[in-house]
């Protein structure tokens, strides 16, 4: 599968280093946090590189699904783009864009595998083949839900940088975030993925609780 054009890959030890630091932080060792921040600052292009990898995965699923059908390919590409725009907040950070990209790729994977299973049923495939398809679908569903969960959590907890949003909100080209926009937003945009998942308001977190109103003290 082609992975050309996604820029210089970050050295593999960077990811190992990050994972090592995360493992330490998960045990409650907060002393590693400055080191973690330093690694992220040292490699700002990390999420962008892997966001591009997500785009390649997306293209690969589209190519598998569409085959030689150019119309289907175009339709699926547009659909994926629309889903990216729908899920990402205007001025999303590269990490958020990467998470959105992961959701879109997982969604395409699930769609492809579901269609493949339907085709297999129609073609009268054997029990063993159908069993393989259903296992793949189960795994793809888990991946999709996990990707959605990660995105919702991230959007709930991390506000978009307090810089612009007006630009991204006003300009449809820049508003189409995904990996292509590098716009620096301004407004704290609501978590879009949560709207996508829940019909009603998502459950409020500690951060959503209103600030306590201070009583006025007479002078």
């Amino acid at each position: 599968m082609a992975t050309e054009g996604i820029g210089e890959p970050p050295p593999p030890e960077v990811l190992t280093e990050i994972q090592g630091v995360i493992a330490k932080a998960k045990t409650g060792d907060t002393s590693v946090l400055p080191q973690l921040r330093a690694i992220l600052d040292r490699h700002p292009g990390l999420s962008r590189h892997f966001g591009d990898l997500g785009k390649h995965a997306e293209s690969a699923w589209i190519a598998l699904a569409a085959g030689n059908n150019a119309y289907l390919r175009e339709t699926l590409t547009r659909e994926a783009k629309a889903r990216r725009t729908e899920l990402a907040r205007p001025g999303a950070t590269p990490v958020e864009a990467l998470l959105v990209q992961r959701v879109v790729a997982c969604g395409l994977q699930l769609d492809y595998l579901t269609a493949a299973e339907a085709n297999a049923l129609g073609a009268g495939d054997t029990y063993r083949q159908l069993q393989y398809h259903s296992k793949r679908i189960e795994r793809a569903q888990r991946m999709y839900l996990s990707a959605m969960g990660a995105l919702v959590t991230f959007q709930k907890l991390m506000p978009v940088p307090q810089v612009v949003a007006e630009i991204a909100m006003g300009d449809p080209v820049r508003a189409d975030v995904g990996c292509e926009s590098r716009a620096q937003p301004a407004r704290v945009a609501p978590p879009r993925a949560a709207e996508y998942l829940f019909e009603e308001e998502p459950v409020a977190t500690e951060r959503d609780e209103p600030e306590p109103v201070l009583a006025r003290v007479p002078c």
Partner: protein
Amino acid sequence: MAFETRRSGGNEYLYLSERDAKTGRVVKRYWGRGPKADAAAKALEARRQQRAAERLAVERTRAELHAVDGMMAELETVAVALMEATLLAAGFHRANYSRWRKQRK
């Protein structure tokens, strides 16, 4: 389940080797001789070939998806690592796979 044919006195005898579920030992069972044994052997061979073809078809599908599966696995690992790194760096923590919370100072 493998099968074998023995020759003795110019006759063919069909035996099948199978593992005994109780003792766990491989035992050979006699299935007969003559046209009935031939038909059984043919049926077993056809079933073996069909299973091989099914396995091949599944392997082909798996090979088709191998490259994109690799990409998805890498994407998942990286996305999770970067998300966790960003949240930890922003002062959040998560104990025992519970919700992410702001670290108390």
